[in-house]
């Protein structure tokens, strides 16, 4: 591998990794609080991209198709899809809270299919163009071209994740969230409104996924109903690698997974068709040998 290739794959890995990390955070937070693998999370990401595209086409008329438009679309989508997450939790998951774990897992699959099927029916399976004016201008580091969009994108997702980490570790609501994740019953006795904390967790997780969806839509320039499927699986893998239930773990897992993909597929004698083999191979290895993930020690204590 030449130096250029190393730098290029670092850039590639960081970008796709920050998408994984944003989605993985939601997985991890929800799992931490109610021990549910929310399989609808990938579809929340997809919904975020569509809501963002719709918002973008409206606000684009006033503020243009540049950064201002994308940021507006991002905020609108995060708010709307955050609420969608709350609604899904209220109607699909809350009635099942005391049901066996398997029932709620199946409900999550159902929620995923409802979102996916609705998007398919509404869009007819079309791929929609998300055309921005962001352009390809950027910096050249030796032979590697890094666009400003890429830099902003990685910075924005790190900012969002850092904000989330600060919220969980520094605020009263964050403290309540951590309390609920450790012992729901005891939290209720201590006067914590558990339902509200869970709703808040869903709102924040879904908003982050929606943010990822809008950024991915604007960056790749295309949005379609199936985009959440692979993203959901990979974000789940990232959450497992980082230690499911842990906020910094999800970030680390996402970035590591992105880098693993990028460098794995540029190994000699290995084609890009092997990329997913690395990803899901890593998932299996972690599940077998270190199910708590890299930073998931707190889960062990908890259980």
């Amino acid at each position, binding site marked *: 591998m*030449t130096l*250029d*290739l190393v730098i*290029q*794959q670092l*850039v*590639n890995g960081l*970008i*796709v990794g920050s*998408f994984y990390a944003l989605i993985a955070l939601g997985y991890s937070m929800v799992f931490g609080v109610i021990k549910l693998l929310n399989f609808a999370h990938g579809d929340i990401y997809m919904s975020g991209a569509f809501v963002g595209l719709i918002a973008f086409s409206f606000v684009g008329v006033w503020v243009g198709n540049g950064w201002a438009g994308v940021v507006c679309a991002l905020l609108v989508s995060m708010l709307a899809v955050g609420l969608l997450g709350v609604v899904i939790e209220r109607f699909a998951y809350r009635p099942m809270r005391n049901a066996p774990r398997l029932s709620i897992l199946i409900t999550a699959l159902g929620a995923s299919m409802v979102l996916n099927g609705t998007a398919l029916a509404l869009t007819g399976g*079309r*791929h929609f*163009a998300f*055309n921005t004016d962001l352009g*390809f201008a950027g910096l050249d580091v030796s032979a590697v*071209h890094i*666009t400003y969009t890429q830099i902003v994108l990685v910075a924005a997702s790190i900012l969002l994740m850092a904000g989330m980490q600060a919220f969980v570790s520094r605020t009263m609501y964050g403290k309540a969230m951590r309390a609920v994740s450790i012992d729901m019953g005891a939290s209720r006795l201590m006067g914590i409104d558990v339902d509200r904390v869970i709703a808040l967790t869903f709102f924040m997780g879904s908003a982050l996924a929606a943010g990822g969806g809008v950024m*991915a839509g604007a960056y*790749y*320039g*295309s949005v*379609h109903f*199936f*985009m959440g*499927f*692979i*993203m959901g699986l990979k974000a789940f893998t990232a959450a497992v690698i980082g230690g499911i239930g842990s906020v910094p773990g999800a970030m680390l897992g996402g970035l590591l997974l992105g880098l693993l*993909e*990028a460098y794995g*597929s*540029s190994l000699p004698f290995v*084609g*890009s*068709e092997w*990329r*997913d083999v690395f990803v899901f191979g890593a998932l299996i290895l972690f599940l077998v040998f270190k199910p708590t993930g890299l930073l998931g020690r707190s889960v062990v204590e908890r259980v």
Partner: protein
Amino acid sequence: MVVSFKRLACATALAGLAMTAVAAAADIKIGIVAPMTGQLASEGQDMENAVKMAIDAANAKGGVNGDKITTTTADDACDPQQAVTAGSKLISEGVTAIVGGYCSGAVLPTLKIYGDAGVPFVIIGANSTKLVAANQGNAFLANSTGDMQATTAVELFKKNGYKKIAVIDEGDAYSSDLAKLTAEAFKNAGGEIAAKETTTAGEQDYSAVVTKVKSSGADAVFWTAYHAGGALLTKQLRQAGFQGGIVLGDGNNSPEYLEIAGSAGEGVFLLSPPTVDLLSGAADFKAKYKDAYGRDAGAYAALSHDVGDLIVDAIARAKSADQKAIIEALKASDFKGLAGEIKFTDKNTLQTSNFRPVVAKGGKWVATE
């Protein structure tokens, strides 16, 4: 369409009155099988119109071998079961020859019916290689089979001076076959395959593949899969600063490609079937078609018109309405139409590919020459 129907009806009625049973028995009847209902009804309508236009023109010149030609249309609705019914109907009506067929799936089960009846059948649109294997010798494929695209691709690479090509597919049967065939053909023609990559369908990030392509030193990329991935790949290649050529397989022939790729799509080549808008010599035909039927000629109208001409030409060369003689005449075809040359191999497929490269300019596909 209404006009031509009336004219045809008038002509038949007059002929019937004047010569009674003799003329009717000597008439040559061509069966047209196409999807007249369902999702692809518009394509079927184009096929019927364009074939009839060719037949009308032949009748206006006095028919073929002194006989008038009539047509009868059967609707296969692009559905295998309905296609079998439609095929049986045409056979029971005693047609001399059959033209048409848009969907390979619907054409496949009818090959046996036509084959057993020994009726010459010229397939217009359908082009699966499965049809070649199921052919009993009476059917002819007037459209290039999918694999002939590889030939056109290699010609395009050579014409543009590409020496090292990166071939990328999506791992499904269609795109990986095309990738393999093209890679082999290009190597045989003295070219070099710099990289052969596969992406995952539904994936949005192609950066790993893009990086490999860039570092492989390829002059050009050939993408054999479909428009959704093609648009993303094009964008990401240009974003990463790839300056070489980009060539797309026929699965990318969609307006969505141009929408999503945006300005990154400029100058990209697409291998297209001979659709009427991209044929340089078809302007006159388009105007006449619009005049006659009050609608724009659809993608396969030009090829359908060619097949109408071809069957008349074959009957003329057979010098009779004998079906065996017509099949022999079709085998010996040497025909030049709007959509290109029609000469058949010993498997009754086209000798030369009718795929043609087109290029994206100003957000539209335009002919290259």
